[in-house]
């Protein structure tokens, strides 16, 4: 297994109860689906390694419970999350309406700029749809998030959902590459690192104070 891991990313799964968060996660990690999934108590945790554009990253995924009462408990685990999946059930408008609340919740516990968000409309295999794709897209656009639709039952969009989120995180400068990153001289990190560009690299450990000073000085005088 021991492929060189570029970094570990922390992802959060949030949204109303019963929308299928745990089911999507199970589909993603084990490729399984239960018609009767137990309702999550508080939160659960799973990991998975994925390789995207030649970079292997470890995902630490925190699956939270959707019940309102748990909201006093779960946000504690939002800390340091780099990506969040905000899920609703396309056959239940109420879960879509509640997304706004979840988003606010997320913004109070995470710095806006530090986390990439993805809105997921789940259960598209079911016939009785209540929220259209357009509405979902509009919501995502309004809140500057990624958007995808999925079904844990048919596995549609599940892989995509995680991969796109991870890709976006890797491309966003300053989001990862912090303390979790301890690389031995390792060739295959090039891809991601180059794309990160200057600002991303600045934040790494090998970032030169000298440069920082001179750039600061130059721009001042």
């Amino acid at each position, binding site marked *: 297994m021991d492929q060189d891991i570029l970094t570990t990313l922390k992802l959060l799964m949030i949204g109303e*109860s019963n929308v299928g968060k745990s089911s999507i996660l199970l589909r993603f990690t084990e490729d399984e689906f239960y018609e009767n999934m137990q309702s999550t108590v508080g939160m659960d945790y799973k990991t998975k390694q994925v390789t995207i554009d030649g970079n292997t990253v470890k995902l630490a995924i925190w699956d939270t419970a959707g019940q309102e009462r748990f909201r006093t408990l779960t946000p504690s685990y939002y800390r340091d999350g780099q990506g969040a999946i905000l899920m609703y059930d396309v056959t239940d408008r109420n879960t879509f309406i509640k997304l706004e609340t979840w988003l606010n919740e997320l913004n109070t516990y995470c710095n806006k700029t530090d986390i990439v968000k993805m809105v997921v409309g789940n259960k598209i295999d079911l016939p009785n749809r209540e929220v259209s794709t357009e509405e979902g897209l509009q919501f995502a656009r309004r809140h500057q998030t990624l958007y995808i639709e999925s079904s844990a039952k048919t596995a549609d969009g599940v892989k995509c959902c995680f991969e796109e989120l991870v890709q976006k995180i890797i491309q966003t400068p300053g989001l990862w590459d912090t303390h979790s990153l301890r690389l031995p001289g390792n060739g295959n990190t090039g891809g991601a690192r180059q794309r990160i560009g200057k600002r991303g690299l600045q934040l790494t*450990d090998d970032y030169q104070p000298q440069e920082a000073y001179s750039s600061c000085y130059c*721009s001042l005088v």
Partner: protein
Amino acid sequence: MDNSEIEDFYHHDFTTASEWEVFIARLEEIIHEWKIPNNKIGPYLKSGDFIKHTWIEAFEKLNFADVEFLLKHYKLNINDEESSAGPTEECEDARSQCQQDALDPLNDFAVLAGEHMEIARYYGIREFLVLVPAKQSSITDETRIKILLSSLNIAAINSNCEVPLLVQVQEPWQRFYLGVSIGKGSTANFEMVHVKKIPPHCKHLTGLLSLFKQRIGAGSGFRPDPVMVSIRFTYLLKDWTNSSWTQEPPDFDFMQGETLGVAELGKLPFGATFDPVGELHLFTTWPQMSENVVVDSEGFTDLEPQLAPEWTVQVKMVSSSACLLGDYLTDFLYLCKNQKTLVDLLGDAASYVSSEDQVLSSAFNALTESRIPTISTVVGKAVTKKSKNIDGPIAEEVLLPILYFLFPDAEDNPKAPYSDVNSYGVEDDQWRGIKTCAVNSLVWRLSIVAAHCAHNLGGASALAHLWHEFVQEIRFRWEKSIPIPGVGSGFPDSVRTCLLHQKLQMMNCCIERKKAREECILKSQSMDIDDPDTESEEEFFECTSEEPTDEEEPSVKTVQKTKHSLWNRPAGRLAKHPSLRLVKTGEALYLPVTQDPVPKTEDQLEEDAQVMMQLGTDQHASEMRARLMSASLLSDMESFKAANPGAVLEDFIRWYSPRDWIEEEGLDEWGQTNGHLSPRMMIPNNPWSRAWSSAQPVPAHRQKRLFDDTREAEKVIHYLVSQRLGQVAQLLLPSLTHAALYTLSLQEQEALPNLPDVTQSILNKLQFATKPIHQKLQLYEEITFDIEGVEALVAQVNSLQHKLGGNTDSKELTSFLVQLMRGKEVIVPGGSTGYIGTRITTMFREAQKAVHILTMSNSNNEMDVSGDNKQKTFPEPVCKEFILRAVTPRPSPTSTPQPQRLYACLKREYIRMAGLFSEDTIFI
């Protein structure tokens, strides 16, 4: 290794002749490679071109016998090659580029940085090749110099190169160059004189002129046109007398007790401790004029600095200016690495004594306390015996104001009460994203005061002393249930504030709950008196909450319950649900009073997450996690059962997870819609049903507390008290750095228009640095370095502004300062008579006066009394430069007139003359 080959290499035989030939050939080869020969004459230079444009450099190595040389090429990079129309056509008169440039006065006295760039200044040329011995060796031998010069000559002729070819001879520091430029019909020789002793006749323009004329006319009897002269005198100012600009560090020794004000305590110092401007160079220039309009001789001179048409200045900054804020931060960073404990620094008195014994009694003390609390140290003194006062380096008259500054509510008339400290982290806040604390809140003040201690009041042990007192006060407040001021209310904000701030918030949460508990007890006691029949549930509060964990077994509880309350009696109801009724009994559903959520600090959250993660990811781990997480679910279920006797899981689910209640057709016997649990809630033995069946009806206040404020408070105190000094400093570092940046941001300096941008970029770094719980010192070192750099710049501008602008603040001055800060030579607007010029003149006069007074007092003053008391405004110039130009026929009167130029530079320690003398090579 096989040495034979290498030895072979050295066995080649070079004769002297062939060495020379090889050398010349190599010179030609390089010249050819660089494509130098085929260059055309460029456009006339504009004023300032020498400085404005970059100089292109190239070099190649070559050897003369075993001596290594470098041939270097320098060329001014003028990009507007297209506009070169003018001279190319007209100057068919065989005048080479260097000759044209030598006569052009527009770039006189240009100061260029960089090796060998003085050549451009000496001879006024825009392009040249210079041969330099590698390894800084010197060429002093006459014959060698001659050989090198003739090599250059031959190479220039052979390669048809008009670009001046020079060679550096003598000692490298002498910057001594000789050379030649072979043009089509003329040759220019580059000559130089560099001597320590200045010949008397060379000290003035008159002498230099006759020297020049003699050299170019050689007594031919021909009357040439007047010589053109450009002159520059340089004056140096180092002694700032009244215009010096420095900042004094805050002096705590002078501020005794009451005078030690809030203003000093809450501010970080800013500025340089000695004047950051080292030198001011005033250049007074007389641009090119005819020799007969100016007189400068032994007895008389027209060259008074105030009369010079052009004034320019340049400033040199002190290389390492000591700045106060930078020093503060650097000192503090250093403390961050200190491994000593408080006991190491303060002695055993500072050791942690658990205050459990006081906890029990404190509940009642709080009520008898006067409204205004006092500072723990004061109380400690008064109350005697268990006084934990230690002998720290901070004197009491300094310590007390500090403590009152931190805890203003301890005073009757607070000098510096906290304003609203909750506004922190508002979206439009300038400091959003920096994880520290609100400006001027407790942690903010503490970090600033800590920096004062570390820097002025005794270093490490002073910080330890302050920390000890601080923790004492926190403990005191816990014991007396007095909220800590200047800390944002609510739960620890692990997103927006630093760890220390969170710890104090946690402390306040504990204090608040403790107070609530105590009030409860009080209420129930008074209630007992009023109405002894009321069987208050709170009555048992204390015993339940103080119960050790193992007694929390359901069996024990049941026993208690049957003893003290009826099984079916509803308890802990918050409100009646507007519509829902219990499925089984039809009674109204009541929302229960539930336990308050548990506040946690960031380190605790991390610990929790670690525990969860370490369980693994398999099914069993998931169940374990569910079990760990179900404490609050169970508590809610118990409260629910207590509030709703006869309730079933369905009832609970309808309240708690309404989406797991599937409605059906029809109404039940109580008139509400029928329904059933979702399939997943009906899975046998799922965590929800399991928790439900184990839940006992216990109202929230009788349950085991999910949050044990006493334990948590003790944990915080223990945490604070057990930090090593370095850890203490690290806890304070984020807010101190923030405060430093804040101090920087208050600086306004028009001459540094980018200051806000730079502050912003440091802020971005700080945002990043403050994010993790454990501080990365390296990042803070970088930020400190940045702040220091900016502080020095601001100090420099402030000093310049003070010196050159006084109180005036004009656009003209600002742009003047901006230029000066870039290290440039800047034209003084209005010259000697303008505002800035007048300021400069005054500074020179003051400095002269100071010197005069000094010499007067040293030598017997009678000497000068008789002498001219009109003491001069300006000192002797540190440098006098002259450029003389003429066009004369050489070598004979019948030759074509040729450009001639002499640059002379006179300093106290030497005279240098650099001449470019041309000769006609056709009409000799």
